[in-house]
């Protein structure tokens, strides 16, 4: 049995087809206008999740990159300060070796004493190094100079406590440089992250080993002794480690070498951290490319493909119109007299 097709059905069908052709064109048009593959969430629920993923990762990465930059600035400043401290100790060592020769005149000794005095003042400057408006060796105390020098006692106080007395609560600052890099310390419940600062003691020495105190004592020895005592002072010059550092200059080259190796160790560690930051930076740069690619795959429209689809939709639309134009107008009336 053949179906009865009325003119109303033909018109209705034509309208529906034209409508769906229009809708297709509208969709592709809004895709092209926005440059987005999915104009609405419901167009592709799966890609919504992928897109959110990629966006969250990209946002994290850009934040971590900022954190890395800031950590890098902090560590680079630390590195500079430490290498200056290293130079300072090296110079002091040279002076200590020079001073340990018994042929020096008292004028020479005075000159050395003066230089050492200058150098110990410089220690204070280095210990209170700032990055912008914050002190980098103060631990959590970043807004007030952490070190106070007392030329009288030859001691240096850290955050208000005497170094020689010890009993200092050293702390250091951590940044988060990647997801999950904050963890709980196994020793206590403090949180640790990637250290950008170090405990000042590890570079400047603790208790009586603090570099300022060492220099102060050298200065005292060199500036206060008489010529006769000077002879005693230097009597057992050759690496006499048993000598009393309170009365003799001879142990100082060794003490200074120890101090230097402490600083060098911290320099090495700082250098290692900077290298790690650079490595992380490279990784993030890579990740960023990957996630941007992922986001683009999910969100961005392939223009060429969309234009192709548009042309196809357009030609469907045109042929729907063409066919409609031919089947709709004629009616039996046109053929009746």
């Amino acid at each position, binding site marked *: 049995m053949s*179906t*009865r*097709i*009325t*003119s*109303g*059905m033909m018109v*209705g*069908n034509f309208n*529906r087809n034209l409508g769906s052709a229009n809708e297709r064109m509208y969709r592709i048009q809004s895709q092209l206008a926005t440059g987005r593959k999915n104009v*609405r*969430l*419901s*167009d*592709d*629920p*799966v890609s*919504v*999740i992928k*897109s*959110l*993923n990629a*966006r*969250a990762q990209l*946002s*994290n990465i850009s*934040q971590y990159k*900022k*954190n890395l930059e*800031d950590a890098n600035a902090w560590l680079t400043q630390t590195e500079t300060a430490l290498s200056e401290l290293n130079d300072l100790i090296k110079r002091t060592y040279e002076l200590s070796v020079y001073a340990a020769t018994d042929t020096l005149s008292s004028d020479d000794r005075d000159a050395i004493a003066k230089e050492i005095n200058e150098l110990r003042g410089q220690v204070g400057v280095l210990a209170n190094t700032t990055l912008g408006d*914050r002190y980098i060796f*103060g*631990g*959590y*105390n*970043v*807004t*007030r100079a*952490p070190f*106070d020098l007392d030329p009288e006692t030859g001691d240096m*106080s850290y*955050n*208000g*406590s005497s170094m020689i007395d010890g009993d200092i*609560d050293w*702390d250091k*600052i*951590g*940044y*988060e440089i990647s*997801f*999950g890099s*904050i963890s709980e310390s196994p020793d206590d419940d*403090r*949180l640790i*992250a990637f250290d950008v600062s170090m405990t000042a003691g590890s570079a400047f020495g603790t208790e009586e080993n603090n570099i300022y105190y060492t220099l102060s004592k050298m200065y005292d020895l060199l500036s206060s002794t008489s010529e006769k005592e000077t002879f005693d002072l230097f009597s057992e010059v050759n690496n006499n480690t048993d000598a009393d550092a309170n009365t003799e200059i001879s142990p100082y080259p060794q003490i200074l070498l120890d101090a230097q190796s402490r600083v060098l160790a911290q320099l090495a560690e700082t250098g290692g951290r900077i290298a790690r930051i650079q490595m992380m930076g490279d990784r993030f740069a890579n990740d960023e490319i990957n996630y941007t690619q992922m986001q683009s795959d999910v969100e961005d429209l392939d223009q060429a493909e969309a234009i192709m689809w548009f042309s196809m939709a357009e030609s469907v639309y045109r042929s729907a119109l063409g066919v409609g134009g031919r089947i709709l107008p004629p*009616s*039996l*009336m046109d053929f*009746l007299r």
Partner: protein
Amino acid sequence: MSGLRSTFYGLNTANSGLFMAQRQLDVTGHNIANANVKGYSRQRYATAAVDPAYYGPQFASPERGKPGQGVQSLSLDQIRNVFLDQQFREQQTKTSYWETRSGTMYYVEDVFNSIDQNSLDGVLQSFFNSMQELSKNPFDEAVRTNMVSEAKRLTSIFNLYNDQLTTLMAQQNSNMVEEAKHTNDILHQIANLNDNILRFEMGGSIANDLRDKRNLLLDELSTMMDITYTNLPFDPPHYNMYGIEQTQLNIYAGRIAGDENLLLVSHKEYFELLIEEEEGFNDVMGDSELTEPFYRLYLASGVMLSPDEIEEYTGGILQSYMDLRDGDTSENIGIPYFIKELNRLVETLVTEFNSIHGAGYTMPYSNQTSSSGSVTGVDFFNAEGLTARTISLSEDILLSAFNIACSSETVTRDTDENLQTGNNENILALIKGIAERNDFDELGGSINTFYKTFLGTLASETSQANGTVASHEVLLTSIQAQRESVSGVDEDEEMTNMIRFQHAYNAAARCITTIDEMLDKLINSTGRVGL
């Protein structure tokens, strides 16, 4: 000897053809005139030949074969298939449910549609990033202020989402009430038409145009709600003037016909839907801010219009609005579901954030209005604001950004001890315990994955609604095409009929002319021999 025949017998016969052709042309005109009227079914005369006139018993007649007396109309019928009507209406109920749902989900989707810096995921991310910045500069007022303003953006976007969703929810409520009133109007009209149709048809003809109107109203009623209807004889029976038993139309809510409790229309009686205010219904959302009362629909018998009380009740615009307004579980997803999910996120965020934040120490500050030392136990978010509507920052944080507790130790300003101004342990704890925590029991993972799931659900729910509408529409279109194929007026066909009836008219007229000439011959020219 030939049998007797009335002189004017043929004239009457031809005349009946003439009149019939005229009436058929009238119907053709009526069909063409109504070709584009919605719900109109084409009409046709049912015709039959009139038997010959018999005088006395057949067998007594010496003559074999007498011509009939022409044509008669049995009835003016409409061409309609009741089975297709029923199929159409069932499909219509489903389609309109999903159409309404898809339409509303479009707006829900609009609330969350953008995925960018200004949507919840972007704002959350900026908020987390502002915490990272603060972890590096805990003493810096500008960075602290930045985190506060990011937090304000976060609270206001929750407020905004809640606002838009509750507005949509209230809209579903008022739409439902409007449509229920409209439904009552339809029921009223159908009952009136039932009465008019019976009165008309008692005279023996069929009330085609009234029936078309009633069918159209039944179509419309089926978009509103799930209905079944019966056409059964009256009790006590009604007969028309030709002794044919008449039927009455009864309409029931749901799929079970015959249940008195579900009656909507019984012939000329109609039972309006009762639109009743639901007491305490506003509290469903834990949100007593909604000013407009929520309504429920009841049948006259007191049965609630809902699948809970009517077996196998599905579909229709009314149910769709109700589901969208009330659906708050993952099995029945409506707007409240999305609000509840947001509330769940807010509650977890606020309580967990405050509990970590409260363990830290604020930074001492003094400004023109107030001053404060380093204190602990400060809330970041207002602890009372546990819903998307009420989430806000605590008064302390609004007072000063220095009240963000970044430090794990007391912070000082004026001593020569460790000031702890750079202490970022508590803000690191917040980053670890909020932004990066991925095992919130209440959220089934991290905040980010929760929001991803939330948006995923929204997207697939909308996509499902759109897809279901599309497939239902295909079915509906196909049934509609079949209906149109049976009942629709085709102009070409009517033209053909017009020509047919015109020819029939002409031929009948020619018959009359011929008989007239015969009579003329008989009367004026016969027996005039020799005149």
